[in-house]
C-alpha cells in the first residue's frame, strides 16, 4: 500500500511493503514519476485521480495524536504554501486554523531565497534584527529592501527567517510548547529562532501527515 502526502512543493510517500519513506519534488511529476497511491492527503491530492483522499488538517490532527507525547498539545505544520494548526486539550480536539493565502508562503519563501543565493543554513548566523512580516511575499520585499541598504545577504536571509519564525509562532498562539511539522523542521536556523520563542519546541519532521493517513485508514 502506498500513502502519499502531496504537498505544494514536495510529495512525501510511504510504502507499507518496504516501510520506506521518500520525498519527491512536485516537478518530478513531469519527469515520468509514476506514483499510484492507495490513500492520499495534501494540497496537490487532486493530481492523483480516483484515490481515497483524507483532509490534510484531519491528517495533521491524527498524525500529531500519534507522534506527540501527552494529551494537551499544539502542532504547527508549515508547508511551502500554507500553515496548519491543531490544538488538543486533555485528548480532545480544541481548535484548528489554516492559513492559506494571506500570510502564507513561509516555507516556499525561505527555500526560494536560500536556493537563489545558494546559501545553506550553516552559512547563516544569528541576527538581532527580525523583519516584521506577515507573509513570505512581504518578507521578500523587506529582504531586498534591506540588502539595498548594505545589509549582507546572509544577514538579510537570517532576518527573514527570524521574522517568519516569529510570525509562525504568533499564528500558533505564541505557545511555550509546540510541535513543529513539515520541511522547515529540518532547517536548523528556522528551528533555532522558533525555539527561542517556544522553548519546548519539538520538531516532528515532514511525515506527520503520513502518520495521520495511517491512523485515518485504521479508523
Amino acid at each position, binding site marked *: 500500500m502506498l500513502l502519499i502526502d502531496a504537498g505544494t512543493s514536495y510529495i512525501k510517500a510511504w510504502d507499507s511493503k518496504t516501510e520506506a519513506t521518500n520525498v519527491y519534488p512536485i516537478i518530478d511529476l513531469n519527469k515520468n514519476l509514476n506514483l499510484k497511491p492507495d490513500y492520499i492527503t495534501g*494540497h496537490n491530492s*487532486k493530481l492523483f485521480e480516483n484515490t481515497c483522499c483524507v*483532509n*490534510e*488538517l*484531519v491528517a495533521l*490532527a491524527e498524525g500529531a495524536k500519534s507522534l506527540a507525547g501527552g494529551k494537551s498539545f499544539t502542532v504547527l505544520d508549515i508547508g511551502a504554501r*500554507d500553515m496548519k494548526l*491543531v490544538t488538543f486539550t486533555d485528548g480532545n*480536539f*480544541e*481548535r*484548528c*486554523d*489554516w492559513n*492559506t*493565502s*494571506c500570510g502564507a508562503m513561509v516555507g516556499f519563501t525561505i527555500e526560494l531565497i536560500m536556493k537563489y543565493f545558494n546559501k545553506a543554513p550553516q552559512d547563516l548566523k544569528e541576527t538581532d534584527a527580525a523583519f516584521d512580516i506577515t507573509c513570505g511575499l512581504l518578507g521578500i520585499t523587506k529582504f531586498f529592501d534591506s540588502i539595498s541598504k548594505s545589509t549582507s545577504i546572509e544577514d538579510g536571509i537570517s532576518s527573514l527567517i527570524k521574522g517568519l519564525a516569529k510570525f509562525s509562532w504568533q499564528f500558533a498562539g505564541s505557545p511555550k510548547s509546540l510541535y513543529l511539522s513539515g520541511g522547515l523542521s529540518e532547517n536548523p536556523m528556522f528551528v533555532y529562532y522558533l525555539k527561542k520563542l517556544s522553548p519546548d519546541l519539538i520538531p516532528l519532521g515532514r511525515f506527520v501527515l503520513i502518520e495521520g493517513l495511517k491512523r485515518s485508514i485504521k479508523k
Partner: protein
Amino acid sequence: MKIGFIGVPPLGKIKEIKTVHPNAKWFDLDVPVDGIPKSFAMNYIPETTCSVIQTILTNTIAVKPDIFIAVTGASKCDSAKFLLPIIKRTLPEIKIIECNNNDKKDFGFPICTSAIPLMKKLELITNNVLNLEPAAGITRSTPRAGFWGVPPYDFSILELFPDNTHIFGWTRCMENKTPNNMELELYVQPDLPTVFFSQSFCQKNILAKELAHLHKGLYVEVDGKMDSSTKAKVTAFLELKNCY
C-alpha cells in the same frame, strides 16, 4: 420604476416607498448577479475592497435604479457610505435615500434556528428583507453546528455545513429586522462548534476573529469565491468537532 437597496432598510422606509411606488421593481444590490462581474468596480475603488461593496457598485451601475435606498453606518457599514460620492458623480440621475436602520422591534429568527439546510436558510433570509411580516410555521431544531456572519458573497461555503446548522451574527439580525443590534450580533450558542465567517477587507473581521477566539470556533475570511483550501479548512473543523 426601479428601486435598488442595500442592507436592511427600515420597515417604515420600505412601507413608505411601497405606498408611493406600488408597482416598482425592487433590486437587492448586495446580491451578485450572473453576468455582471464585480471586477468592473475596480475602475472606481481599490482592489482591497470587500466583495459585497464591489458587488453593490457594479450592480448599481448595471441596474441604474431610479431610487437607491442606501443603508449605511452601524446597521450596514461605512464602506457603503463611502460609495455614495462615486455613485452621485457617475450616476447623478439616481435619487439616493441614505439612511441608518435603528429599528428595535424584534421579528424573531425562526429560519436561523430551523432544520432547513443552511443554503436554503440564507436564500430565505436574503429574499425576505422586503417582507413586512416575520416567517411563520417554522419549527426550531437542535443545532449540530453554527454559522456566524453576514450572507457571504459566495454561497458555496454553505454547502459544507450539516443540516441543523444554526445561524448567528448579522444574518440573524437581518432576519430579526434589527440590523443595528450589537447584542444579538455578538451572541452565539455556548459550546456549539461555530464557524465565524467574514468577507476579506470587511471590518467585521475584527469581531469574527475575536469571537472565534472566545468560543474556540473557526475564523474564516474569504475574498470573493471560496478556494479549495478554505473549503477543506471548514470541512476539517466540522469533521474534527464531530458535526457530520
